[in-house]
């Protein structure tokens, strides 16, 4: 039987489908496994890093050098698709990883904006949320780090030119912004999850089709790769418990 974590891996992997020869930058265990699955199967041209300054093949051997200064230039050049985390995410895809509460004196200081502003304006930016809840999926984020569709539009053509949020994957389902006003839409449910359950865990109304499909099933080969080759230690289950 396919686990919830494995559906999440598949949904993350599919984010990099048809991306061609770009850097896949996964943040988190499940996106990392997903990126490797994508490269091993349907997106073999993807570039991956070792998490430090090297571009590595699937065998871990270096094929290139990518220190932070070049990594940032790769972002602004657009040849990258990142999947970031989000402490808060709103209906138009604005993301917050900086702080909770009033920025002047936050209730909870988190990481800071990091590279979210440069990511979202320059290369496709998807999001991974391992624990879907109203704490994360909020009506309005406290600090816009990653720029959403409404804020990009308000900032003008320089902001929208390369702005794209291909998808959001959570432990409950897959979401995108392919609606008339670019508000978030439920694209697929992971098997075992209901529409009501997702809406209940989301702090704003989600768009959806009348019939929401389930996230696709893995092939036997994909399951084998996940379980035996890419993640034999089961790190995926720690991020998304059964």
């Amino acid at each position: 039987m396919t686990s919830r974590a494995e559906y999440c891996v598949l949904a993350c992997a599919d984010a990099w489908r048809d991306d061609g020869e770009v850097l896949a930058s996964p943040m988190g265990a499940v996106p990392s496994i997903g990126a490797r699955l994508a490269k091993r199967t349907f997106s073999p041209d993807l570039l991956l890093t070792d998490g430090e300054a090297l571009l590595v093949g699937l065998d871990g051997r270096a094929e290139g050098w990518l220190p932070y200064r070049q990594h940032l230039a790769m972002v602004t050049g657009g040849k990258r698709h990142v999947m970031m985390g989000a402490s808060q995410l709103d209906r138009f895809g604005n993301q917050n990883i900086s702080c909770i509460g009033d920025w002047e004196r936050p209730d909870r200081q988190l990481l800071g904006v990091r590279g979210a502003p440069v990511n979202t304006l320059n290369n496709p930016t998807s999001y991974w949320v391992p624990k879907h809840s109203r704490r994360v999926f909020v009506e309005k984020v406290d600090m816009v780090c990653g720029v959403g569709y409404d804020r990009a539009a308000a900032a003008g053509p320089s902001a929208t030119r390369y702005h794209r949020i291909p998808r959001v994957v959570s432990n409950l389902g897959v979401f995108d912004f392919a609606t008339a006003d670019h508000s978030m839409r439920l694209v697929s449910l992971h098997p075992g999850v209901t529409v009501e359950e997702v809406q209940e865990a989301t702090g704003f109304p989600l768009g959806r089709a009348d019939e929401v499909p389930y996230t696709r099933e893995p092939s036997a080969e994909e399951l084998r790769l996940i379980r035996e080759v890419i993640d034999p230690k089961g790190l995926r289950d720690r991020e998304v418990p059964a």
Partner: protein
Amino acid sequence: MTDKTMTPEDVVARLHSGMTLGIGGWGSRRKPMALVRALLRSDVTDLTVVSYGGPDVGLLAAAGKIRKLVTAFATLDSIPLEPHFRAARQAGGFELSEIDEAMFMWGLRAAANRLPFLPIRAGLGSDVMRVNPDLKTVTSPYEDGETFVAMPALRLDAALVHLNRADRLGNGQYLGPDPYFDDLFCEAADSAYVSCEELVDDFGAAAPQTLLVKRHAVTGVVATPHGAHFTSCVPDYDRDEAFQKLYATTPWPEFAARFLHGDEKDYQAAVQTWHEETR
């Protein structure tokens, strides 16, 4: 030629309260910790600190030496949130200029190139613009007519960086996989101080691209073996994860009393004793 070697105390004697200080490395990686520790022992305070923040920011924040911080984040990498940075922010301990990682790099580049600003797309639409009301935009004079953030130069009064090797003249070599932005920090600063794991007479048959920092941009060189501890300084040593965890989980007065009571030699000895006790 000028022998620029000095002690950590000599470096700190050249720093003064109220100055803008850049600190190299990234997160909890190759931070000039011995120089930061020397700064902790001094009266220098009221600093504007410019750093891709790690425990350098945490230590200086805990000691109350930061008036203003310019950063994109503060993290211990393996421990995502820097505890003293968090505590200081939540207590309103210092002013913050929170900018994006790439804006930060553009700011250093502008300063190193003696430009008032460099245009960058990053920042538009984000709350970086809200929390930095002084940030302005600039419109391309060419046909595209696009509007960008005019990232102001991050000019530094002084910079502190830590490298694997350096010579007495101020040339510095990194041996790890990432130079971070240490050369830019030095070039963006009026005076720059390089601490190093090992002082060498020459660099032998070194790959020339490892010779990152050039002496014309360096004021002082300090030999501080293990001077990046507890951050990583590969290939000389990895991050001291056990000690970093201790740092992150010990109340500041207790940590400072045990490890920061004396000079750098006392610090290294106290760390060694702690490791022996916990073995």
